[in-house]
């Protein structure tokens, strides 16, 4: 079942797909043509997408750290278990 509070349709996006959707939202908001309710909804979705991207980056950072430590010690590359 869902492992995160993030809505499932966002949680399943890759970093790249989430970033693309976030860029689309930013463009739409910048044109300033949306109705206020739509703009607020888009802004909220954008915030969640940004949160998801940051979460993905944190996971990637943790993986990179693990590899760096391993090469300083023994040459192992075990992935960091996050859940």
């Amino acid at each position, binding site marked *: *079942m*869902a*492992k*995160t*509070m*993030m*809505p499932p349709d966002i949680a399943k996006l890759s970093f790249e797909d989430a970033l693309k959707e976030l860029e689309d939202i930013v463009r739409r908001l910048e044109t300033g043509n949306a109705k206020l309710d739509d703009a*607020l*909804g888009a802004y*909220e*979705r954008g*915030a*969640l997408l*940004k*949160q998801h991207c*940051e*979460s993905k980056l*944190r*996971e990637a950072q943790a993986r990179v750290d693990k590899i760096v430590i391993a090469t300083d010690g023994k040459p192992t590359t075990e992935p960091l278990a*996050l*859940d």
Partner: protein
Amino acid sequence: MTTLLFSHKACLAHDTGSHHPESPARLAAVLDGLSGAAFGKLDRRQAPEARLEDIARAHPRAFVDALLDAVPKQGYAALDADTILSPGSGEAALRAAGAVAAAVDAVMAGEGANAFCAVRPPGHHTEPAHAMGFCLFNNIAIGAQRARQAHGLERVAVVDFDVHHGNGTQAIFEADAHVFFASTHQSPLYPGTGARSERGVGNVVNAPLRPNAGSREFRQAFGEIVLPALEAFRPELILVSAGFDAHRADPLAQLNLDEGDFGWATERILEAASRHAKGRVVSSLEGGYDLNALAASAEAHVAALMAA
């Protein structure tokens, strides 16, 4: 008799990072909504920090210590993808739990008819030894245990209408027949628990709602499943996990409630409390992530408390 409002500015200082849905702006919106003329008669109290022995009635001491130790002196620490700590998070967590404990004390002492705790972080997802879902300590569980053990109550009820199942509160009390737990929530939705079949030792009632359910389905589930069980339990105190994310405007879920539904549910809870619990209700903020909907819903909830 008055309605007490517990809060503390430390709860605003729990920084979850830019654009995290569980943001300080949520609490600011609630407090702003409760600053209007209609709320002038609220008896406003500063939330104390929870005593460690009160927190330890809901969580093992080792978990409490580990969580407070995990609070970073700078930057952020992630307990999981959703649950973030930063330097102000320890005090915020202690004040949020302390608010509910103090509200229980005050209502039991007759200082107010009922109370609302405008606090963050929320609490209802935290299990005995596992913080999750934006939650650090299980504020409402700490309040329920305070009522049981410091005030000697035999029957304490928790009603949770946050859109997410209160898995933490259920886990803490599912084997304790002295505490009743009822939850309405969307299913499927995080955290995935809360099936109708989960009944604890006969003290747990779950009423899951399908995505896109609205007022009619909510009031039916609340009226036909939650309220009769609550009445049959004859609670001496009712605690409310008041999440407002079942609102149609909430970005994290897909139910379609409005402010009127939260007012209605609050009135029904107050009626049950007047029959069995001398009117005693202590409510604490859980979720709600659209700022306008959150403020309007909290206002409807507190207005109903004040009208009891």
